[in-house]
């Protein structure tokens, strides 16, 4: 639909305008690689099965998708505060088209950022994926972007203002990152945390990226832990449920409209 395309095009245009955001999204994984990577590599030293920085690569790409997609979708909050959301809600389109447009825009941004970072990061850690691995990696990035983008729109439609943003960062983004297998294998976690990890869309995305990039190390326990179809299915399910929920939340009068159309009293 044309309106969905319009919303996606606007997201992309805004992203290109914000040069700081582009640089931050590309620089962030390298900061993690250098600082977290150096520390963890020292802890892991002695078990020479895999260079920790190689192990981190799929997780860092997952992190790029997460920041890219989730933050893009969360911009629905600023759209509401700036009034732009009202332009979308008064247009003759369904709320689901608005939710889909925002989620697809987020997917596009997450994917573009992940591809740029992959182009720099993989040669840097001397990881050379096979053709099949590259294709699977692309699927992982797009599906993760969609699932996280949908989650971002759900969060944006539920939180009232930009002030709650820090809460989202602390209670959503960081737990998602640490419980995703990006920094250490999920199987090392206890049963309770492991259960939480499997409610985390990023965990499936990172697992899929490990299938794509770390297959040579699968034998020593550093590849993907879940079957590929399960990863793909879980991500698709997160995306579909998230989109349906986001459309409902955006249509709900008290959710977005009462703050979007605040009465002057």
């Amino acid at each position, binding site marked *: *639909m044309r309106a969905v395309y319009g919303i996606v095009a606007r997201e992309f245009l805004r992203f290109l305008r914000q040069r700081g955001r582009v640089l931050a999204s590309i620089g962030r994984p390298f900061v993690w690689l250098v600082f977290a990577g150096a520390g963890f590599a020292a802890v892991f030293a002695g078990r020479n099965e895999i260079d920790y920085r190689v192990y981190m690569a799929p997780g860092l790409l997952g992190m790029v998708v997460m920041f890219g997609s989730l933050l893009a979708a969360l911009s629905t909050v600023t759209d509401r505060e700036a009034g732009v959301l*009202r332009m*979308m809600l008064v247009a003759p389109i369904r709320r689901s088209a608005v939710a889909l447009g925002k989620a697809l825009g987020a997917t596009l941004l997450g994917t573009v950022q992940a591809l740029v970072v992959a182009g720099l990061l993989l040669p840097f850690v001397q990881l050379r994926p096979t053709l099949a691995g590259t294709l699977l990696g692309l699927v992982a990035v797009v599906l993760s972007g969609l699932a996280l983008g949908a989650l971002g729109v759900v969060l944006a439609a539920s939180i009232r203002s930009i002030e709650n943003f820090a809460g989202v960062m602390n209670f959503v983004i960081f737990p998602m990152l640490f419980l995703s297998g990006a920094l250490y294998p999920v199987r090392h976690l206890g049963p309770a945390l492991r259960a939480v990890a499997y409610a985390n869309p990023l965990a499936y995305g990172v697992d899929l990226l490990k299938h794509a990039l770390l297959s040579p190390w699968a034998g020593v326990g550093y590849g993907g832990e879940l079957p590929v179809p399960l990863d793909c299915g879980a991500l698709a399910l997160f995306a579909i449920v998230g989109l349906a929920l986001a459309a409902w939340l955006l249509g709900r009068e008290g959710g977005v409209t*009462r703050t979007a159309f605040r*009465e002057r009293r």
Partner: protein
Amino acid sequence: MTAAAILARGLGKDFGALRALDRLDLEVDDGEFFGLLGPNGAGKTTTVHLLATLLAASRGSARVAGHDVAQEGLAVRRSIGLVFQDTTLDRDLTVAENLRFAARLWSLPDRVARPRIDALLRQFELLERRDDPVRTLSGGMRRAADIARGILHEPRILFLDEPTAGLDPRARRSLWDRIRGLRAASGLTVLLTTHYVEEAEPCDRVAVLDHGRLVALGTPADLKRAAGVGSLEEVFLAHTGHPLAEAEGG
């Protein structure tokens, strides 16, 4: 299309315990310039949002351009343009990018949208600023761009919600010139909300609202004659017992 442009029957809205709009009966004719006059909090914006399908009514019903607001939201939104109190433009995008975004939201094909955007930019004296970010525009120019955005899809009915709020006198005058020009050229129905009597004066008919209730309805001349007073300001005072200008600041 001889049906009324807007028809409301017992339309009302509550926000929790607050009765924002009681029971509004209203009929606006095709091509009419209709004013909703009242202080802040009178229920003007609530009325506009109910008619634009952005809020769901607590009671009553309304038809806009012949479509039921509860059942045919998409058809209603297709027939109307709405200029909000506060700008809805993306400040980081240029004027032209904003209009292109709006054209896509309204599903206008590029070959239709492009010449229309050019014509509107010329008409609203924004051609030289078309590639400037909206945040660099003056308040008057932003408002002009907002209105251009509101009529891009050639709606049958245009809602203007307090369109002159925050504008200087010169920008106000030029805005009213544009609205007059649009109405003369296209027979557009305009529903205006305002708390300035001088803006309600040129309307064909005016509905006076106070505390969510319709207190008077008629042409400005009839309203003044019926109340035996010389201005709409006094009309408001005669019907409500309190002056319009000082009623509940906000």
